[in-house]
């Protein structure tokens, strides 16, 4: 019988064997009974790469650059004092009602 270890250069034969085994893997039907832990291990690897790619492809304006702190502007008007334990704090008449965000509806 022909032995697959016969003749050509050993490294070429090993490479051809790998190609053959890969072809079998690619053509194999979906089988239950795989180890879920193994699948999870690969899923984690895939998801990390996807997350990294998505983060890297964000517009630069969306990404906080290191060393730049958000600017905090102090309130010009002092916070109103609570008038009683059960009453809600009245809104200052000078302060406009904030509009909902544009994407709200």
């Amino acid at each position: 019988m022909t032995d697959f270890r016969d003749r050509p250069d050993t490294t070429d034969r090993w490479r051809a064997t790998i190609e053959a085994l890969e072809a079998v893997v690619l053509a194999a039907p979906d089988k239950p009974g795989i180890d879920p832990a193994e699948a999870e291990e690969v899923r984690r690897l895939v998801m990390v790469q996807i997350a990294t790619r998505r983060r890297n492809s964000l517009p630069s304006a969306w990404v906080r650059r290191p060393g730049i702190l958000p600017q905090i502007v102090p309130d010009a008007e002092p916070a109103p004092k609570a008038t009683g334990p059960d009453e809600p704090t009245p809104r200052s008449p000078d302060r406009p009602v904030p509009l909902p965000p544009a994407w709200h509806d």
Partner: protein
Amino acid sequence: MLDLMRSDIAAGAAESSTETVARALAALTPSDLVRLKRLAQLRARLLPGFEWDELLNEALLRALDGSRRWPEGVPLLSFISGILRSLLDGRAQQRRRLAERALTASETSVTAAPDARLHARRCLAAIAQFFASDPDVLALIAALARQYLGGPGHPAPQLSGKRREAARKRLARAILRGQLDEFLP
């Protein structure tokens, strides 16, 4: 088996290819994820000391950063398998060049990389040993490998259709369950 084709996923023409790859990868079934691992493990066996997860990570990076385009009509796993192949070929070439440079510097005669040959011989022997009790599987491997070797050689033993299919199933099972990988040096 999940047979994700690029055309199945690319709904909008404006959608970027890399996002298409990302979505397809995120949709892989557990079975396909294990298949992906096996492909990386097999490919990494060509280069002793190279880890499968390192290779797979690099392949995913290439697929996701757009440096490799996913051709229309090619299943996702075949696409990733192609990237694994070219990455490993690149690494192997790099390693060979470094070895040659080192040998030239030390003025030793350059023969083929003995480490790679020894590793290949050991792996082939391990496969022969693993399937020693299953000559049909060994015949199938020989026949399939012959297609990739090209040129004249010994004719591969022929198996009948049913025996060939049964051998293919046994071989696939041994690979997918990771039994063969554990056995390889």
